[in-house]
């Protein structure tokens, strides 16, 4: 069996990093919700939606590529 078969897949690392970033950005967005920063179009709360999106993508990748999960299946 190749060495790569034993490796944690790169997609898992991506998932973890994006999920962590999602949590941070979402938390900052919630904390600043009533007083958004003075950037253009801040009324659309891009940080809130961006945080949620990152959390969803990151969470999916983390879950789907969790080490050992696919082997068990």
């Amino acid at each position, binding site marked *: 069996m*190749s*060495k*790569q078969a034993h*490796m*944690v897949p*790169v997609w898992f*690392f*991506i998932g*973890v*990093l*994006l999920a*962590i*970033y999602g949590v*941070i*950005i979402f*938390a*900052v*967005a919630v904390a*600043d919700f009533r007083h*958004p*920063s003075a*950037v*253009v*179009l*801040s009324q*659309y709360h*891009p*940080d809130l939606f*961006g*945080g949620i999106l*990152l959390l969803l*993508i990151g969470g999916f990748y983390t879950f789907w590529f969790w080490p050992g999960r696919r082997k068990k299946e």
Partner: protein
Amino acid sequence: MVLALFAASVTLQAADRLISLAPADMLIIVIYFAMVLGIGVYLKRYANTSNEFFLAGREMSAWVAGLSFLSANLGALELMGWAAATYQYGILAAHFYWIAAFPSLACLGLVMMPLYYISKTHSVPGYLHLRYGEATRALSGISFAFMTILMSGINMYAMAIVMKVVLGWNIHFSIWVSSLTVAAYVTLGGLYSAIFNEVLQFFLIWVGVLTVPILGMIEAGGWSGLVMKIHERVHSDEYVHLWSTLGTFSGNPMGVHWTGMALGLGGVIAFGYWSTDFLVIQRAMAAKDLRSARLAPIIAAYFKMMVPLIVILPGLLGLALLPYKLVPEGTPGEGLHTYNEVLPLMLARYCGPGLLGLGITALIAGFMSGMAGNLSAFATVWTYDIYRPYLTKVKSDAQLVVVGRWCTILGVFLSIGAAYFVTQFKSIMDYMQALVSFFIAPLCATVLVGMLWKRATPKAGFWGLLAGTVSSIAMFTLVKVNHSYLAVIALSPNAKEMAENLYRALWSWLICFLVTVIVSLCTAPKPDDQLRGLVWGLTDLPSERGMPLYKRPVFWAAGVGIFFVILQWMFW
């Protein structure tokens, strides 16, 4: 508190920088550095043999190899430089993503990759060794190592300058922290580590910058609103058309004729870069089988053609929406912003705390992926094509890995040296494009003729490559000494510097091609049995009969072609 103190220790006064980062932004950057180092430490256990360290065990899937292939090319200078070029030249800059991607990457995947992969060579100079012999390998290996280090140093210095202007970071801090981080993870995990981090960086670049085109298009009122605003700003339609303004040299902001764009850029520069620059080829060589190796550049082509969404569109949005006019580098004046700052300015326009940190992390990731690509390619070429054949007789596989690790560290210090060297001669940064035309354009002709024509001889390979390189340097010098020669080389008195780069590459390719053909006809070729696996017509490729159409590389390459045609039609 700790992050705020850290930020204060490395940054200048707020007045000296474009963007201020909040603690959340700094946290995002610190986590990124921790993650890439962690990946390097984790992968060290898998990089024990030379095949693993230099070619990632040839176990990568087509997707991983393809994304890493593109990411190695998607450096921070690429992102910021082409956003700046778009502000300056308009949508013409998209040619460097579209015509520079389609024919060349499809051809690499379908025609050239099988020979690189089947020959089981470790590098492009290694292929030239098998095809032409020692002299051609030495010439291309040394020129590649020289070019890689210089490019890496120039990139490093330019990135440090950007970090100083944008974030107020100390130049030495940026150079040393970023380069030592890259050195650490590439030295530990070799190509495994470089590839894993490049795929990670690819995602970060996209999610980090995507906010700008989305919010920018909302602000501009869609594409039609954007075109209208650009027209109001520059009073011309030249900035939003790809081909219709290229009928004359003077009819477009770039000063380029369509022949230069199609033949010089699409036919030589892009073709040469993608199909012979080992920096990117190494990623495809790491694929687990021939089909994956062929698919890797084709997958990269799809994403390459989508990169204008996060590079070209922000440049156009900057041109349409920024309330002030950006100026060329070096323009005197207080508080002026340069073209190169357009992407960071657009990030600062739309991104609050958190998203801004992600955007800046995307720029840092771009820089590190480019540098990791340079380092891993340098270590491989130096170890296999310079150190082993000429400097010592390395015996064991384990010794090669040790040499590779030391070469990575050596490459970092040489790059740092080159970065400081560049600070003494700042105009060298302007010569980056020239560097590509010196070494890459002629190499493209040498490789292509060698792969397609079995009659090409070892002596012809060497003399063709030498003639192409020398003629390119001579044309460059001639224009520097007497600027009137630009009109001769670029075929028009209205030609600008960009046209010079494109036509110089075209002439040096032609000179290399002609010399290779003429010398081949006068010298003895290699026997056929020595060319099997190296030349089309003498190489048996695995049959794809029985393979479903949707799994064949040619099917996906045709898709890239259709995508390309649609884009040209949309923005004609």
